[in-house]
């Protein structure tokens, strides 16, 4: 089972330079934090979906829809309860509080979707290379890529450990919250120790392949700005300009 987000496909977004995609990602974050109202945020969300469709990355949404939905629900419910407003709806919920919660939900989900599209269309090696060209130190850029790599490894270990303990009769589905939490100790200890050992192995393997041996390093992968990148950056800049005008023109 593939636990990586990257989708090895050929699309206009895949072919963009990683730096372009980093700029677009940052741009979408900027656009997202500009607003609190659901309207423009929803427009941003649609733009992102279009971007993702061009990058043939929306299939990955299926893997995180539950996360997106729970964030939306938690955000809408909690802001509805805690944010004050002047138009009461029912109990202590106001129209303003609800709208604020809805906006926050779309904002967070937009950022996650933007990140998802980025990771679905960009190899970790490309991200590393892009960051290096943007003057991020190599070690830092590589550490970032290792963090991405560790996620599926840990999920894989967690799956195996859970199966091993369930086959010894561990039943994670019953009991109150506290009991359930305690039941996770037999899972957490092996997962933690296994991950530690794995990291140690990885460090040795990296070192024996010359990681960090030279100040400069070359790259087998080639990246470069092309016409498509210019086009994408112009489109991105225009979109953000539109959002800026909407936000500050009044």
């Amino acid at each position, binding site marked *: 089972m593939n636990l*990586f987000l990257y989708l090895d496909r050929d699309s206009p977004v895949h072919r963009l330079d990683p730096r372009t995609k980093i700029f677009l990602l940052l741009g979408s974050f900027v656009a997202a934090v500009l607003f609190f109202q659901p309207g423009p945020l929803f427009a941003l969300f649609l733009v992102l979906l279009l971007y993702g469709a061009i990058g043939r990355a929306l299939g990955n949404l299926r893997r995180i829809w539950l996360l997106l939905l729970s964030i939306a629900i938690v955000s809408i419910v909690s802001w509805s309860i805690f944010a004050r407003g002047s138009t009461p709806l029912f109990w202590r919920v106001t129209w303003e509080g609800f709208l604020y919660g809805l906006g926050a939900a779309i904002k967070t989900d937009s950022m996650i979707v933007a990140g998802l599209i980025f990771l679905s269309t960009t190899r970790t090696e490309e991200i590393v290379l892009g960051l290096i060209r943007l003057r991020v130190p190599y070690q830092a850029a590589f550490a970032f890529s290792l963090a991405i790599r560790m996620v599926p490894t840990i999920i894989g270990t967690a799956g195996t450990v859970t199966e091993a303990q369930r086959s010894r009769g561990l039943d994670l589905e019953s009991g109150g919250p506290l009991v359930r939490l305690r039941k996770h100790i037999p899972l957490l200890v092996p997962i933690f120790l296994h991950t530690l050992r794995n990291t140690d192995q*990885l460090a040795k393997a990296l070192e*024996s392949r010359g990681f960090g041996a030279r100040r400069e390093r070359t*790259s087998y992968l080639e990246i470069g700005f092309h016409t498509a990148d210019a086009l994408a950056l112009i489109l991105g800049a225009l979109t953000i300009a539109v959002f800026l005008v909407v936000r500050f023109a009044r």
Partner: protein
Amino acid sequence: MIRLDEVSFRYRGATEPALSEITYHIRPGELVGLLGRSGSGRSTLASTLNGTIPHLVRGDLQGQVHIGGQDIRAKRPRDLADRVGFVFQDFEAQLFSTNVALEVAFGPENLAVPREEIARRVDRYLRLVHLEALRHKAPAGLSGGQKQRLALASVLALEPQVLVLDEPTSDLDPAGRWDLWAVVRDLRRERALTLVIIDPETDEMGWVDRFIVLDRGRVALSGTPSELWRATATLEGLGVKGFTLARLASAIGVEGEWQDASQAAAAIRSAGWRVKEGAADRLREADAGQATGEVLLEVEDLTHCYPDGTEALSGVSCAIRRGEFVAILGQNGSGKTTLVKHLNGILGPTAGDIRLSGHSLRGQPPTRPSRLVGLVFQNPDHQIFAERIRDEVAFGPRLQGLSEHEVARRVNEALEAVDLAGKGDLDPFVLTKGSRQRVAVASTLATKPEVIILDEPTTGLDHRELEGMLALIRRLNQAGHTILIITHAMAVAAAYARRVVLMRNGRIVRDGATREIFKDESGLLALGLTPPPAVQVANRLGIPALSLDELVGSLTRSPLPPSPSAPLPQP
């Protein structure tokens, strides 16, 4: 090329040294096999060869290690990367790129090799390890054997003069091992490379130039394969497996060194040995009495699809009787582990059914079948969590809600069965891998299952630990437990299992008596499997023997025609 002078090493916090006063020189282009039981210092010695010790592992290093004239103290492993390549047992942890070609490029990139040269090396080494067709694939999607060959290519791309392989085949199936060794042999023909290989399968290491056998951190024995052939008894004394054919030769008192089973069979015949009258029938009769119990587990037309749509099992049917000892064989990815996970309810079937004592497992919570069917996972470290062995073993019984009195009784019984009686208060993590494996078996035993399934129970164990584990499994079988093992170790399957289930691509392709299946060498070969050496010799002599003991017991020496000049033996 490699000079070890008076090398000693003690891990920080350890009382005993892991290596003591090792002096050994390895010439350029030599291939050295490093043997020794677990804890003898094999891996520690290997770790000094690229400076992992002392630079990444804490401890006290004495003496001198020079690689190509370079003192390893002066250089970190990364600075030695273009001199010493290192391939580890755990291929998962060595691969971190998103495709095969980038994995190979990673090393040369670190050494700032120009891009055109990197491209050349990527092509060259992927071709060498036969992965050129998979260059755009993600390493995660490769088979175990392919992953280990990729790890090898990615180290070779640094063009080192010395290559250290630390148990590279332990997690591979027979075909995967065979392919890896074929690549290493090609490599040696192509260029002068000094090789140090750690591999416990002595039988597959007959092609090395020299062996070093370590014991308690010292060189206990060293020599050519021929010299080792003659030192079989000494080797066994050091807890290291000797050549099977050498053990055969000494068991029947025939001089000579045999390259393969055919040569061995011919030599045995010409020495006047022949098969005893009725030996084959006696062997078959011994099997006949076993496993006539009622059907305990019934798998019917079982199909399993993973969430991503891959079909891991397609229409598998089989029945396991009470008291049987069954080995499930097949290459990595053939569906063995997926099948056994259904038997204790960890996985549910996509289609088909599993019946336990006649009752369908469909719709049952997994806790119920797991009481009757115990599954010991491949890696004990995936389940051990408690600080005391006693608590670890008590985990299952406590979950069943037994009284503390009963739990204690079962824990003691289980620890007794795995030879860990009296060690209940130790921390499982101070034990060796073999003993941790025993703790895992005890944990399962304590729940008193009728069926015990063991997934690769011998991986990573040394010769003695392996024999101990198998003796334990056999005892459990004799005590009435039904046993299923998944294994790549063909000698284990042959000598212990009375029935073999062969799997391929999610289907059972053969299911029958071990004796009959191991006779059919070409049938096994088609599945990427070969019988162990003793069985190969037996097949060539026409005896259905499954172990060295059975083979030797089936042979008799025909009286040689009396030679007129020879004196008559004195009564």
